[in-house]
C-alpha cells in the first residue's frame, strides 16, 4: 500500500463507472484522431514546405506547395477541435481517476502549467501560418518548425503526466526531494516508447487521411489525386510498420504484472490486444491492394475502418494497462455511485442536439461556394 494515494472523493460519482468509462474512451479516441491529424499534418506540411523551399524543380515545387497549404489551412480548426475533444476526456479522467491525476499534476506542476502558454503560442502560430503562409520563404519555414516543436512539447508534457499518474510508488521520492513541482517521468522505462508510439501513430493516421482524400480526388477527377494517394499511403505504411517496433518496445518496458495480463492473464484484455495487433496488418495489406486496384477508394475506405478499429482497440488496451497498473491502489468498483439520471439524460439529449447543429453548420459551410 502506498500511503500517499488520496482516497476516492466521498461525494461519489454521479453515474455508474461504466458510463463514464465509455464516455472517456469515446471522447479520448476522437481526441487522438484529431490530435493525430494535427501533429501529422504539421509534420507533413513542414516537410513539404521544406521541399518547396529547397527544390529547384518548378512542377515539384508547386505540388509540394499545394500539399503544405492544404494541411496548413486546416491546422487551426484541427487545433480548436483537438482541444475541445481533449477537455472532455479530461473531465471523465478526473471523475474516475482524480486521485492519480491531481497528485501527478502537482508533482510535475510547472511543466504541466507550461502547457497553457505552449497551447496559446502554438495555436496562434497555426493561424499565422494559415493566414500568412502563401509565401515559401525562410520566415514561414521557421513558423512551421515552431508549430511542430510546440506540438511535440505539448505531447511530451501530457505523456509525462499520464505516466507519473500511473506510478504512485515513485511519487514520494520525487515530491519529497522537491515539492516545487519540477519533476518529469523520464526515469520510467516505458516513457520514451510510449511517447514514440503516440507520435508515430500520428504520422500513420495522417497518412491514412491523406490517402483517403487522394483517392476521393482521384474518383472525382480532381487534381493531385494520384500523388496524394501515393504519398498518403507511404506516410501510412512506413510509420505503421515501424509501430510494431515501438509497440513491442513499450510492451516489454512495462512491469511484468502489467504486461502479463495482456498476454493471456486477463482474457478480455488479451483478446482486445491481439485483435488490435492483427487489424493493422490487415489494414496495411488492404492499402497495398488499394494502390494496385483500378478504383482505389473502396479499398482505402476499408483500410481506414480497420485502422479506426485498431485505434479504439489500442485505447482499450492502454486502459487495461492503467487498470492493471493501479490495481494495487484502487479499483473502479470502489467508487460510490450516486446517480444523477436526470442530468445524464439532459446531457444525452443535448449531445444529440449539438451533433445535429454542428452537422448542419458544417454542411452549409461545405456546400457554400468557395471563395
Amino acid at each position, binding site marked *: 500500500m502506498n500511503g500517499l494515494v488520496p482516497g476516492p472523493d466521498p461525494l461519489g460519482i454521479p*453515474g455508474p463507472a461504466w458510463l463514464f468509462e465509455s464516455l472517456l474512451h469515446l471522447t479520448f479516441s476522437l481526441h487522438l484522431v484529431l490530435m493525430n491529424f494535427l501533429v501529422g499534418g504539421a509534420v507533413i506540411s513542414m516537410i513539404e514546405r521544406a521541399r518547396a523551399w529547397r527544390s529547384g524543380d518548378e512542377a515539384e515545387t508547386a505540388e509540394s506547395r499545394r500539399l503544405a497549404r492544404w494541411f496548413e489551412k486546416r491546422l487551426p480548426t484541427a487545433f480548436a477541435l483537438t482541444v475541445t475533444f481533449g477537455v472532455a476526456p479530461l473531465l471523465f479522467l478526473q471523475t474516475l481517476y482524480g486521485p492519480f491525476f491531481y497528485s501527478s499534476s502537482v508533482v510535475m506542476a510547472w511543466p504541466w502549467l507550461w502547457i497553457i502558454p505552449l497551447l496559446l503560442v502554438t495555436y496562434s502560430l497555426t493561424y499565422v501560418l494559415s493566414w500568412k503562409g502563401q509565401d515559401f520563404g525562410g520566415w514561414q519555414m521557421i513558423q512551421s518548425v515552431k508549430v511542430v516543436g510546440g506540438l511535440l512539447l505539448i505531447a511530451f508534457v501530457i505523456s509525462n503526466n499520464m505516466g507519473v499518474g500511473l506510478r504512485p510508488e515513485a511519487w514520494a521520492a520525487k515530491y*519529497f526531494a522537491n515539492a516545487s*513541482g519540477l519533476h518529469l517521468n523520464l526515469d520510467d522505462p516505458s516513457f520514451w516508447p510510449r511517447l514514440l508510439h503516440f507520435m508515430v501513430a500520428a504520422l500513420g493516421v495522417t497518412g491514412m487521411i491523406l490517402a483517403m482524400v487522394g483517392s476521393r480526388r482521384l474518383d472525382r477527377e480532381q487534381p493531385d489525386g494520384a500523388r496524394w494517394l501515393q504519398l498518403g499511403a507511404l506516410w501510412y505504411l512506413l510509420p505503421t510498420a515501424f509501430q510494431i517496433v515501438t509497440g513491442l518496445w513499450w510492451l516489454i518496458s512495462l512491469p511484468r504484472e502489467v504486461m502479463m495480463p495482456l498476454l493471456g492473464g486477463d482474457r478480455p484484455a488479451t483478446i482486445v490486444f491481439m485483435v488490435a495487433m492483427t487489424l493493422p496488418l490487415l489494414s496495411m495489406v488492404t492499402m497495398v491492394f488499394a494502390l494496385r486496384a483500378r478504383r482505389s477508394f473502396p479499398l482505402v475506405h476499408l483500410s481506414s475502418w480497420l485502422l479506426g478499429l485498431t485505434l479504439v482497440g489500442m485505447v482499450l488496451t492502454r486502459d487495461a494497462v492503467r487498470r492493471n497498473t493501479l490495481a494495487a491502489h484502487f479499483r473502479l468498483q470502489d467508487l460510490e455511485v450516486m446517480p444523477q439520471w436526470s442530468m445524464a439524460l439532459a446531457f444525452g439529449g443535448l449531445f444529440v442536439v449539438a451533433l445535429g447543429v454542428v452537422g448542419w453548420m458544417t454542411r452549409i459551410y461545405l456546400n457554400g461556394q468557395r471563395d
Partner: protein
Amino acid sequence: MHYPVWDLPFAHGLLIAVIAVIHVFIAHIAVGGGLYLIVTETLARQRQDPVLLAIVQSHSRAFLLLSLVFGAMTGVGIWFTIGLINPTGTSALIHTFVWAWTIEWCFFFMEIVAALVYVYGWDRLSARQHQTVGWIYFIAAWFSLVVINGIISFQLTPGPWLSTRNVFDGFFNPTYWSSMFIRSFWAIGLAGLFGLWTATGREAGSRRIWLQRYSAVWSLVGIAAASLAVLWWWRKIPETARELTRGDMPIATVVTQWTPIAVAVLAVIVILGPLLFPRRSGRPVTLLVLGLGLFCFGLGEWVREGVRKPWIVQDYLYVNGLRADEIDRFREGGILANARWTRSVAATDSLALGRELFRVACQNCHARSGYNGLASRVSGWEPQYTTALIKRIEYLRRPMPPWVGTADEARALALYLHQLPGVPSEVALPADGRAAYERRCSPCHSLGGFRDLGEYIEGMESEEIYEFMEYMESDYMPPFTGSDRERQLLADWLGQNVARTKEVGR
C-alpha cells in the same frame, strides 16, 4: 490535507488571480460580443450598409482570435490551475457537477464550431444562414455561461445542497439568478468596450463616430444593469460574507469600497469619451476603458473569491482541503497523523515538522514571504505568542480554517515560522500603547467594529485591565506573553483611550 501541496515561492492566490481574471474577462467578452456581432450584423443588413457590414466582418476576425485562442486556451488554463492549487476542491466540484460540465461542453462544442463557421463563412453562406450561425454562436456561448455560473455561485452559497446533496439544489442555489444577471449584463458591457476597439481602429473609417456612440451605449447599458444585479446579489450572500467586507477582513473591506468607485469612473470616462465626444476619443481612451474594465472585473472577482474564504465550498470544504466533517478526526490525532503527503520526520525535529505543517495547513493561502507571506506577520511576535495564536487561528479577524493540529504541532509550526528569513529573533518593546494593542489584541479585536474591544472592557480601569491580562487565557484568547512593561503600557493605553473612543462613538 489529502493531496500534495504545490510549494510555490509566492501565494497560490496570485497564480489563480492572474489566469482566472484574464480568462473570465475574455470569456465574458466572448459571450456579450456574440450578441454585439449578430445584432450589429442584422442592423447593417437591414440598413443595407455595406461599409458597416465590412466593419463587422473585420471585427469578427479579431473576435475569433480573442475568444478561441485566448478565451478557450486560458479556460483550459483555469482547469489546470485549480487542479494544481486545489485538487480537493476541484474534485468536489467535478464529482458534484460532472454532468453539468458535460452539458457545458456540448454548448462549448457548438460555440467553437459556430465561431469558426461564422468567421470563415462571410463569403460562403447566404445572409440568412450566416445570421442563423451568429445566433447559434451567441445562444451557445450564453448557455455555457449559464451553466458555469451555477457551479461558481454554488461555491459561495451551496444552500440546501449541504443537507440534501441534490445537484439541482446546489446548482439553482440562492445566488444563482442574481449572479447570472450580473454576468450576463456585464458581458454586454464588456462587448461594448471591445466594440470600441474596432470603432477606434483604421477599419472603422467613416462609421467611426456612429460606431463609438453605438458601442458606448452597449457598455453603459450593460454596466448599469449589471450594477443593479450586484445590489440584488449583495442581499443574497451570507451575512458572514458581508461582514468580512465591513471591517472583519481589512483587505476585503478596502477592495469592496473601491469596486463601485472604479465602476463609476469607468462609466464616466465612457460617457465623456466615446459617447459625448467621439471625435476626440481614440485608441488611447479605448485602451484606458478596456484596462479599467479589466480592473473592475478583477476587483469584483476578487471580492467574490475573497468573501468566500476560508471556504472553497461554503460550510463543506476549506481552502486547505479540510472537509468540515473531518475536523474531529483530525483534532484527535493531529495533522501529521491524518494528512497525506507529509514526510515522516522525527518527532523531535520541530523545524522539519513545522515545514511539513506549514505546507499542508497554511500554504494554500500563504507564502513564506511577500504577498500574503507569514514572515512579516510573525515579525514582532514571540514564538510563544505565535503558538498561542495558531491554536486559536479561527478566532482571528482574518478568515482562516480552524486549527486541527495538536499543541506540539502548533509549537513546531510557530518555530518554523520564526526562523524564516527576515524574522527578527528578538522582539522589541512596542513604541507605545497603541502599538502594543496592535500586537496583542488587534488580530482578533477591533476598536468600534468587529468584536469591539471597547465594549468588552467597558467601564474597566487600567488597573483592572492589567489584572485581567493575568487570567485572560481561554479557548479563544491567548495568554498574555509579553513583558510586564508591555502589559502595563497596554493596560494604561486601553484604560485611558479605548473607553474614551467608545464615548465619542456614542
